[in-house]
């Protein structure tokens, strides 16, 4: 019950944050720098959650010999896929904060389409339909697609390098 309520609250909070971002109630990049510590800031300064260590630990455990049974492999692979998805979500919100209203709307539309395509591609990668290998095929493809998108959004998040910053 409590878990249900927590999940519902999380979903509501996520929707509220995104709608604030899109509607422009939260600061655009120009004003974000000026008001980064103001009431309207989306992400408090110095709050930068990291899932890297968790991801590395899981990746290392998935490579141990002997390989675990299928059900355990499926779970680990799905956990890794979920971590990558959460990392993507964090970078997406960070990127949204940097954009102006027009760019935010554009990114939201782009992300919705990308999410649909990811679901299609991950399903299409399953050759063992109805078998216990199917969840592993699905989560492995899901991770790979998400990883590519993560790199893409991280690249956009990094400030454009000037000749000075390149030094």
């Amino acid at each position, binding site marked *: 019950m409590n878990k249900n309520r927590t999940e519902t609250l999380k979903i509501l909070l996520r929707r509220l944050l995104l709608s604030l971002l899109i509607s422009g109630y939260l600061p655009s990049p120009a004003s974000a720098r000026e008001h980064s510590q103001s009431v309207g800031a989306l992400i408090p300064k110095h709050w930068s959650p990291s899932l890297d260590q968790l991801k590395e630990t899981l990746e290392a455990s*998935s490579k141990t010999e002997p390989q675990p*049974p*299928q059900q355990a492999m499926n779970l680990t692979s799905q956990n890794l896929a979920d971590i990558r998805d959460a990392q993507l979500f964090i970078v997406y919100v960070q990127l949204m904060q940097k954009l102006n209203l027009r760019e935010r709307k554009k990114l939201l539309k782009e992300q919705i389409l990308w999410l649909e395509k*990811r679901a299609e591609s991950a399903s299409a990668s*399953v050759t063992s339909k109805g078998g*216990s290998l199917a*969840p592993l095929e699905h989560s492995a493809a899901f991770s790979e697609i998400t990883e590519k998108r993560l790199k893409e959004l991280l690249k956009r998040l990094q400030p454009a390098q000037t000749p000075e910053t390149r030094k």
Partner: protein
Amino acid sequence: MNLTNQQKNICEHVVNVFETGSAEGNYGAIAIFPDGPHGMRQVTYGRSQTTEYGNLEALIQMYVAKKGTFSKQLQEYLPQIGVTPLVHDVAFQRILKEAGNKDPIMRQVQDTFFDKRYYQPALDWADKNGFTLALSALVIYDSFVHSGSILDFLRKRFSERTPKTGGNEKAWIQQYVDARQNWLAHHDNKTLRGTIYRTQTFSREIARNNWDLALLPINAHGVMVNA
């Protein structure tokens, strides 16, 4: 295909080890994967794993009809399964887990259910294509559990015909195992490469000529299966 009870038990126990790590299987196993309709998350349950938007309702109906210890509690969920998402329903998942771990009736129901879902279709396929040996049954059954069927694209990678169409049974099984091993071992997605212990087990049994599964124990991924 006429298998003795011992041969059938060996097939089931070996595949249980591959799936769960134990010959008896894990009847209370629960996992959540985003492989439901439109990428929705769904509950996956049981020894050989059936899904919320697949056949979980049918399994629970069978269990409720058998009047198991948790039948009353699970009966209340029947109208919701496959209709309302239950991935966040902790109580539902706890009951499923307890039923699988504690109630012998749930175990019997799952044995019957997964027998119909995987074992019988595998044996029907084997019969239809002229296979008669117990090790062939094990290889075919494993392919049904792991990949849902005998994979057509793998059959195109080797030349031997099925016994029904004039081929040699042992040669076909050897070539199918090799094709599957080759597919998994060199899969683009490295995660899948870790599953080759299945085909390695079969190759070992073929090498020691264990076609009637009489040479025991069988080393299934480190677990010794006796019967």
